[in-house]
């Protein structure tokens, strides 16, 4: 993991309203930040796997989503897969700075489109 990416990822929890964030590398290694009680690292890792599985049927259909956002009553989950198998998961409180920043963060994570 490059230092630039680490710094970028480490800055995400500071965005107001960011409840948790996690990233999975192609080798399966995960990195997560979140409240230790509600979102410990193991839970973030599990969520990355679960949302990857949720994403599969959509990817298998003709949609090829760039990302999906799961809007629950008290939190929104943004799942962003990359073609090179990197995965990003963000959990934010609705109507917060973090919720407004979701698109920017997802676009930062994805490689630039041609």
């Amino acid at each position: 993991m490059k230092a630039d990416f680490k710094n970028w990822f480490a800055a995400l929890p500071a965005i107001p309203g960011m409840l948790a964030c996690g990233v999975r590398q192609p080798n399966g290694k995960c990195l997560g930040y979140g409240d230790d009680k509600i979102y410990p690292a193991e839970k973030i890792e599990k969520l990355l796997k679960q949302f990857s599985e949720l994403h599969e049927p959509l990817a298998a259909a003709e949609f090829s989503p760039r990302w999906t956002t799961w809007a629950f009553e008290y939190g929104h989950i943004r799942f962003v897969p990359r073609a090179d198998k990197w995965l990003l998961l963000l959990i934010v409180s609705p109507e917060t700075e973090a919720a407004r920043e979701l698109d920017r963060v997802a676009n930062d994570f994805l490689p630039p489109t041609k």
Partner: protein
Amino acid sequence: MAKEKKSEHERRILIVDDDADYLATIGDSFRALSEGRWQMCAAASAEAALKILQTEAIELVVADINMPGQDGIQFIGELHRRHPQIKKVVMTALASEEKNAASRAAGANLFLEKPVSPEGLKSVFEKLCELIDWKNTQGFQGVLRSVGLPDLLQMECVGKNSSILELFHEHPLGRIYIDQGQITHAVCGEIFGERAFQKLFTITGGTFELLDFEVPPERTISRPWEVLLAEALRQREQLAQRAQAGKKILTADETAAAPAGQTAEMLISSGAGEVLYHWQCADAAARVTLLQKIAERAEKLIPELQLGKLDRVEIQLADGRAILQPRADRLVFVRVAAPTEKNES
């Protein structure tokens, strides 16, 4: 001029708590933190609070849970029914996930733990400031911070309720009549029927209020509410994309005049998977199977996530966006293609 400016920013806040010392402390603290801009009112019980609300223009109510007589959550529920426009916060010393969920279900916009330090007090004050200044720019501000106009319409229709939804944007804009779960009439200025419904639905940045039902002067809408709602969501999505692409905010008249034409697909199915309505779905049955699969998988995650019910799934595509709304009795799916260069101009 200075006086006028000050009064513009004055807020009236009501704190409800049976602990007199706490009321005095928090009142003084919030007054100081707001530099006198918050006028603090206090009530030692739900009953006393409701009396104050009859005479004072309160913007925000902060209530404790444990109080003699009506408890804080019951009080918030009653307040929510009587004064849906007032912002509501539950603040307790003994926070738990159950109390949070119960408070939210009763209509609280925020659930907070009572602060025990000056820093905590400042943090709570900042959260309350954010809430009080919060305006929903994505859609109509409703009885709940997290509930939008589509949600409220769905709740009324699925619950087979009868009510009138009145919409405002500085002044009244129009009304949507719901009779036993069916949308029967809409009026927006001089426009009636489905056109009025669509126009009301696409205006952003307003507020709405649920009124007691009255028989409308005429019935101007007959199509099922699911179809109306799906079309309205589709149009709203298109307008949002157009506004974003064009970097301008559309006015109410512009939204009504904006042409449709970017919807790629629309589908409504029953909870059992029966296709109720579809438009441009090459294989509607296969699409329902796929959407049901996603909804079922997501449903299984809900208890673990502790984030409440799943409202919708938004899918960002390379060439547009799609929204899936899974409900127990139906699935609504709308896919919108990204505006083309020609459409944007």
